[in-house]
């Protein structure tokens, strides 16, 4: 059984985000980039499914400029078997375009499970997995916190408002991962060294027959307004008083 994992290279979660002075975008110059944490969870889940004997091959795919190869290699160090880099240059891509590119890869590879992060911590769209499932006409289970695959069926526990929902789905399917699905491992030194030798295939939007006509245009980026410092209140009465009269939330 094949698993396809889509991964995105994003600004590292620990970096303090700066906006470019012309407000055109977030400033990525010299900033540390890493694999999107939800994608890391997706890779980890795939590796666990392989270790459990459920999956036989893990393919990772990433879309972007040359630098995403590094992200693919780190997924390989975690345990992915081979990679596909879709060279889209520096173009900004909308979730629909990404989903269209991924759908072509799904068509070619015919995986039983497609794993994606539920969202990327840069644009926070939370759309790609859903759109991909629609384009492929696959069932989908988003926000997964537990994934079990047996007897050609997937049982996925989802984190939803107010609790957990359990779905049973037929394969092939799309799963997007939530934070509590697993804790990604540290990569092993020998696996870092092996990652270099794993096959990495290059594709382009043209070779996949997808045109990059972007339906979404970014107009302006602004930093969130600074939060005012809090105040100290002496006792509960003062707290209730200020919630009523100053914050006006009671």
């Amino acid at each position, binding site marked *: 059984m094949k698993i396809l994992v889509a991964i995105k290279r994003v600004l590292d979660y620990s970096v303090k985000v700066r906006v470019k002075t012309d407000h055109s975008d977030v400033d990525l110059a010299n900033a540390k980039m890493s694999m999107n944490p939800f994608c890391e969870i997706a890779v980890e889940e795939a590796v666990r499914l392989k270790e459990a004997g459920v999956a036989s091959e893990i393919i990772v795919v990433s879309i972007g400029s040359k630098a995403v190869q590094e992200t693919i*290699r*780190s997924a390989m160090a975690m345990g992915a078997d081979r990679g596909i880099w879709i060279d889209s240059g520096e173009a900004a891509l909308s979730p629909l375009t990404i989903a269209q590119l991924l759908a072509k890869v799904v068509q070619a590879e015919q995986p039983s499970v497609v794993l994606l992060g539920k969202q990327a911590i840069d644009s926070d769209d939370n759309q790609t997995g859903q759109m991909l499932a629609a384009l492929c006409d696959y069932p989908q289970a988003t926000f997964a916190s537990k994934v079990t695959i047996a007897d050609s069926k997937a049982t996925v526990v989802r984190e939803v408002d107010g609790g957990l929902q359990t779905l049973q789905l037929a394969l092939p399917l799309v799963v997007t991962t939530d934070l509590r699905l697993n804790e990604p491992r*540290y990569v*092993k*030194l020998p696996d*870092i*060294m092996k*990652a*270099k030798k794993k096959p990495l295939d290059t594709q382009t939007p043209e070779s996949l027959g997808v045109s990059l006509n972007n339906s979404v245009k970014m107009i302006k980026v602004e930093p969130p307004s600074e939060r005012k410092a809090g105040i100290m209140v002496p006792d509960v009465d003062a707290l209730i008083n200020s919630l009523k009269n100053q914050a006006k939330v009671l």
Partner: protein
Amino acid sequence: MEFGLSTEQQLIVDTVRSFVENEMYPHEAEIERTGQVPLELGLEIRDKCRDLGFYAANMPEAVGGGGLNHLDFTLLERELGRPSMALSVFFGRPSGILLACEGEQRERYLLPAVRGERFDALAMTEPDAGSDVRGMKCYAKQDGGDWIINGSKHFISHADIADFVIVFVATGEEQTAQGKKKLITCFLVDRDTAGFEIRKGYQSVSHRGYHNCILNFDNCRVPAAQILGEVHQGFDMANKWLYGTRLTVAAFCVGRARRVFELALPYAAERKQFGQAIGRFQGVSFKLADMITEIDAADYLTLAAAWKMDQGLDADREIASAKLYATEMLARVTDQALQIFGGMGLMSDLPLERFWRDARVERIWDGTSEIQRHIISRHLLRPLGC
């Protein structure tokens, strides 16, 4: 020339960084308070490093190590400069000199050290012989197929957790151009050997929880099979294998300095006095400018020396320069960082005072700053007949 990290190097750095942040930082405050690493914790760190294949990363793959070259290992050591040394010692970097093990020594010392089953410590220094290693008084006399060791060593790092000690002992004298000099032999001595005692050492201002010990040899009988290398060749062996460990001191200092800098920079941007961030005052901002410039300089000196070693070139002078500059840089950087924190910098509620204390030993061990300057200047002047 290539100054960026390869994908593999970046992965090594990222992995070690997240390992020390998640597995070591949370225990640091407690170790500072108690001055002791619970052995279970140390062994847990060791076990995790073993599982990750990072244990003994400095040793060749042929003996079961990680097989990193000097440059990659220096990058790893740089990350290990960040956490408490009392914890990072369990990350496992057996002394490279163990590669001189031969025959059954490999099974008894080298391989178990690489597997993390036996810890080693290395002993040269004595109360009357520090910088002047060849002035050592600890001596061994041959008795049939055995050697009998007498004397003592002090300041021996982490001998409290060592299963065996690599110890340098005088075994004779020779006439040299500079007068009589001791001939030195290197022995491998197991912890429980009769006549060998490992005692608690002194209380040090630097690296709480990372202990130094006193070793006593009282008619300690050791078979000749436990000589590492050849009889009388210990001094040359030390020179051959131990220059490299000096570079790890430099790498430690660079990593530690970056951690300190990462605390001082945002503090300067956030702490307000006189109605604005203190980073707006040149008195503070120029400190930051000097700090980062010196950190980068030490970093490049260190990496360049490691690169030279990987090329098989003589790097003794460059290693001495890196060790000298990085250790002195760390002293200045920790002092300035503490200054930027003002009064709070001195308080043990924050780690600044600890980094400042820890930095002090770096200019002393593995050859003092003066000895490094001696090495550097002799390299320059000796060829001129001076």
